[in-house]
């Protein structure tokens, strides 16, 4: 963790879909997904370019500087 990631009270930053997001220690991927969508179906999550299966979202706690991608279907050829 770099000094810039570390803030008082342990609050830190992660990047969700390219946008910086402030989280408290213990925040799970499941909570971050629920910040951007009410849905679970049709969603895939990558943490630092690794797939995290839906069944693990609520068990995985994010760390400072993590890159989270919350993905779904878009129109595409």
């Amino acid at each position, binding site marked *: 963790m770099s000094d810039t990631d570390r803030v008082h009270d342990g609050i830190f930053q992660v990047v969700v*879909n*390219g946008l910086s997001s402030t989280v408290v220690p213990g925040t799970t991927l499941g909570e971050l997904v629920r910040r*951007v*969508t009410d849905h679970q179906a*049709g*969603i*895939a*999550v*990558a943490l630092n*370019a690794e*797939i995290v*299966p*839906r069944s693990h979202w609520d068990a995985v706690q994010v760390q400072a500087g993590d890159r989270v*991608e*919350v*993905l*779904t*279907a*878009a*129109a*595409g*050829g």
Partner: protein
Amino acid sequence: MSASRRSAGPSQGLRIANRTIGSRLILGTGGIPSLEVLAGVIAASGASMATVALRRIDPSAKGSVLEVLRDHEIEVLPNTAGCFTAKEAVLTARLAREAFETDWVKLEVIGDEDTLLPDPVELLAAAEELCDDGFVVLPYMSDDPVLARRLEQAGCAAVMPLGSPIGSGLGIRNPHAISQIVDAVSVPVILDAGIGTASDAARAIEIGCEGVLVASAITRAEHPLRMAAAVRLAVEAGFEAREAGRIPYRYQARASSPSEGMADIE
């Protein structure tokens, strides 16, 4: 019973990986102007499978492509559009499998931003890895019979050569190569990319393709629903024409009216 229903019959369905897809026309949703138009195009095209891309969720979006496809009971075919390496494409396919609960993938690995032509080296590497991982892989490929054979050997369930660059509407620039691909492989050949209008789709089926994937020609037409219907009819016409057996090409004319019984009126 409509003509489209007839063509969905078992003897005429598109068979991929031991499954029958209802329509030979696979709809690409790229370029669709709205979800309302998408719903109309699905109905008009008679398609039973449609592609989607995997992208960051938009929290402000009202409705979704996925909801429209599911409401119309259209099968989702995820693509790996936007990937430039095998590694990216394989990860994208696995994410799509997680999101959409399908192991089918339209595999795209692009090699050039201007032409959007596939990178055959990365494509084959990605196809091998995904086939080994149990995916039903439908690779978007250049119009190369040798590459088609290599992709079939890798285990791909179909091959999808381009008629011309994505979104160009230039039709089938090298029909001879497409025919050679049809002869080179035993898996279905689905023409993907380049179709500009209905007659291009008819031609693809006439020269031996088992299906066509059409996006821009429909979604970016002035009247997408009318074009969707036109392409559906063209695919049916192309199939009927192919099954009917066209006449051979001839260098000189061959009269169709009898030469006997002419009146003496000189």
